[in-house]
């Protein structure tokens, strides 16, 4: 594959697309598929065939358009978006291409949910066919790879990434450029690049959507990373609970191999890289990098103490670069537009954009990409459209089981790595759950502790037994039978787990408790001292276990 050949593929694909005067895009990512977008697409296909307009009208399955709550979503070349469309609406949707829009299905796109977003990672989501490499190439795909291979040295690539200020999107926010440079300087007989797609936070589906909507972007990001650090083999560790993402990744890898973009002598250079998939068997802890490596090696997925860090001694003892799906997905646009372009977006220390899975008590739930530094208020009230049913905002939970709950006084805080950490939460991988007054914060803390307890691998004592003890204490509190002594024990365990656990899971497991103890102390007090749950959640029959 030469730059000219790539341009040729892009050109012929664009030509082919120009022949269609009308296009109908149907979301075929997991969110919309679950509300029957496939029958809808079939109905549209059938209708187009029946009308004999297949020459001018294209029906295309595309990735996620964001507003998952209103699926199935359909967008047309006239710029209209339809929500909750059913197969019965197919005819009307096609009629609308040349006539009046179907007003009862219209989903306005000039609302803040769409207008406030800035799409970099998701630029192709909802636009291209995720199962067609030509479509990705027509959208400037693999151009960054060709540029890197033909015009740039590995050092220059790392330099661009460093300049961009990109930080790890898996949650911890480690500077990506620094990680790449560490791996490139490490000595080993072989180096590996691993893409961490073991997204496990409850309520988070950013990585899944990216993989389902634009898998080639992640592959291209990995290729560029491999070139930069000198790796020849890559793994994508994706959880088996994402069958569609796995299927599309497999398709994408096969297509890239066929075009010579993966494999040996890529683009007639001496750069070789191949990618294998590894499926996670449903352990949250395998998102932790050392546990993930153990799992790829075929061992029990448990973490090990660091150092040595994977950058020095990783997979099979060799230097290994591990980045998250979203981190890799940011790489091609950074190379295409330059690190400085990316660094202009976002805040001083947190550059670029972040994809969030907005869930919980907001009008608009779904997948959004926003510039770093946007305030929580904008997230909840503008993009999220506010709290439904006239209820009062109570807290927003970020970072999943490792994060914390932020009350209303933090609403005007910018969303970036530092601010969230200062407020007692973390950026995390991008789950954002909004809660209203009907949620009990002790109950929420208990939910996350239950998650950590069942997901603890059991290797180190503080996490294994500590999460059990903490869950038991929270359970007592939610049964309204706790004493002030239990609260003291709970705080003691928070400190113990944070400081003595082996890996991030145990160290951050107390975060939901710590943050709610800090911001909602009076709620804990009401449970313990007055025997009351202010939200009316606890102590009811549903929390009583059968004797």
């Amino acid at each position, binding site marked *: 594959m030469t730059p000219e050949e790539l341009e040729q593929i892009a050109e012929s694909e664009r030509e082919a697309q120009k022949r269609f005067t009308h296009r109908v895009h149907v979301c075929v990512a997991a969110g919309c598929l679950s509300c029957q977008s496939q029958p809808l697409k079939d109905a549209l296909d059938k209708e187009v065939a029946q009308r004999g307009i297949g020459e001018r009208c294209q029906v295309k399955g595309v990735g996620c358009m964001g507003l998952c709550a209103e699926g199935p979503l359909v967008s047309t070349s006239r710029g209209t978006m339809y929500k909750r469309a059913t197969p019965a609406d197919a005819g009307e949707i096609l009629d609308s291409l040349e006539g009046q829009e179907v007003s009862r299905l219209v989903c306005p796109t000039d609302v803040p949910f769409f207008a406030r977003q800035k799409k970099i990672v998701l630029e192709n989501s909802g636009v291209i066919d995720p199962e067609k490499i030509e479509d990705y190439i027509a959208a400037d795909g693999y151009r960054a790879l060709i540029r890197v291979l033909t015009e740039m040295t590995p050092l220059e690539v790392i330099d661009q990434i460093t300049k961009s200020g990109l930080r790890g999107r898996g949650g911890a926010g480690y500077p990506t450029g620094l990680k790449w440079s560490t791996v490139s300087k490490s000595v080993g007989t072989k180096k590996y690049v691993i893409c961490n797609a073991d997204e496990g936070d409850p309520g988070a589906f950013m990585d899944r959507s990216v993989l389902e909507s634009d898998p080639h972007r992640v592959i291209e990001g990995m290729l560029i990373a491999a070139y930069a650090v000198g790796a020849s083999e890559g793994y994508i560790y994706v959880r088996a609970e994402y069958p569609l993402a796995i299927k599309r990744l497999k398709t994408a890898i096969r297509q890239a191999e066929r075009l010579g973009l993966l494999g040996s002598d890529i683009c007639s250079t001496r750069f070789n890289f191949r990618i294998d998939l590894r499926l996670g068997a449903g*352990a949250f*802890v395998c998102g932790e990098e050392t546990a993930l490596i153990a799992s790829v090696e075929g061992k*029990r997925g448990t973490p*090990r*103490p660091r150092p040595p860090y994977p950058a020095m001694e990783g997979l099979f003892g060799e230097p290994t670069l591990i980045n998250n799906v979203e981190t890799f997905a940011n790489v091609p646009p950074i190379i295409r537009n330059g690190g400085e372009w990316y660094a202009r977006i976002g805040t001083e220390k947190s550059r670029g954009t972040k994809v969030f899975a907005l869930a919980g008590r907001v009008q608009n739930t779904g997948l959004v990409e926003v510039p770093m530094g946007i305030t929580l208020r904008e997230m909840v009230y503008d993009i999220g459209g506010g709290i439904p049913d006239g209820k009062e905002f109570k807290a927003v939970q970020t970072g999943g089981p490792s994060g914390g709950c932020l009350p209303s006084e933090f609403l005007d805080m910018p969303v970036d790595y530092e601010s969230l950490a200062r407020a007692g939460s973390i950026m995390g991988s991008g789950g954002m759950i909004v809660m209203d007054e009907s949620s009990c914060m002790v109950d929420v803390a208990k939910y996350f502790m239950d998650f950590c*307890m*069942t*997901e*603890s*691998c*059991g*290797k*180190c*004592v*503080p996490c*294994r*037994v*500590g*999460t*059990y*003890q903490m869950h*038991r204490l929270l359970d007592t509190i939610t049964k309204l039978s706790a004493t002030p002594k239990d609260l003291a*024990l709970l705080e*003691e*365990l928070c400190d*113990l787990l944070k*400081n*003595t*656990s*082996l890996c991030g899971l145990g160290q951050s497991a107390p975060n939901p408790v710590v943050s709610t103890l800090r911001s909602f102390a009076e709620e804990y007090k009401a449970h313990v001292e007055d025997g009351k749950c202010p939200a009316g959640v606890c102590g009811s029959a549903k929390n009583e276990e059968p004797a």
Partner: protein
Amino acid sequence: MSRAANIKTLKIDGRDVSARQEETILDVARQNGIFIPRLCELSGLSTVGACRLCLVEVKGTNRLLPACVTRVEESMEVTTNSERLQRYRKSILELLLTERNHICSVCVSNGHCELQTLAQKLDITHVHFPYRYPKAAVDASHDRFVVDHNRCILCTRCVRVCDEIEGAHTWDVMGRGIDALVITDLNQPWGASETCTGCGKCVHVCPTGALSEKGRSVAEMLKRRQFLPYLTLMREDRE
């Protein structure tokens, strides 16, 4: 690399000590008679850093580091026994004591148990977390040995000795979190294990009464570990 670079000097609890660069803080502390509690580590086996009892403070980092896997560094300043560390160690030991059923008075290892000794040494007189009282099984299907999960602390010494020294890999861990369990083969009765060579190494590295020889009564089970440094030394020589 020059030969001088292989030797590091550091301070442990204010004492100046020297060490080879591949040694861990725990190695050096042991050589100098500085006691650091640990349950999962055992000389001659690989280290896993799992029990978290050997955590120490190192000047310059606010993270606590496990002494058993942390390599020495030049001019490192290590504190092994601060008030904070003692508090954490006691809590961790207490958590272990609440996890399963550790009833010393009826245990074969009473008086020869590392968990018990450590608890005494750290002045644990009572446990301030609630006990779990799980219903744990006892597998006495093997001709000569017994595994009593009530006493197991999941240190995985048995798993490592069986894999690394004996080469049989009969033992492994199944399940996760609080439900994790050491098992023989694919969770078959020990007596039915096809891989077990009956060498008994696991029994003798076990820190508690979880693994014992049959026919031993309360307080009778003495663990003999001389084989481990001997075998390790022999193998190192051959390499």
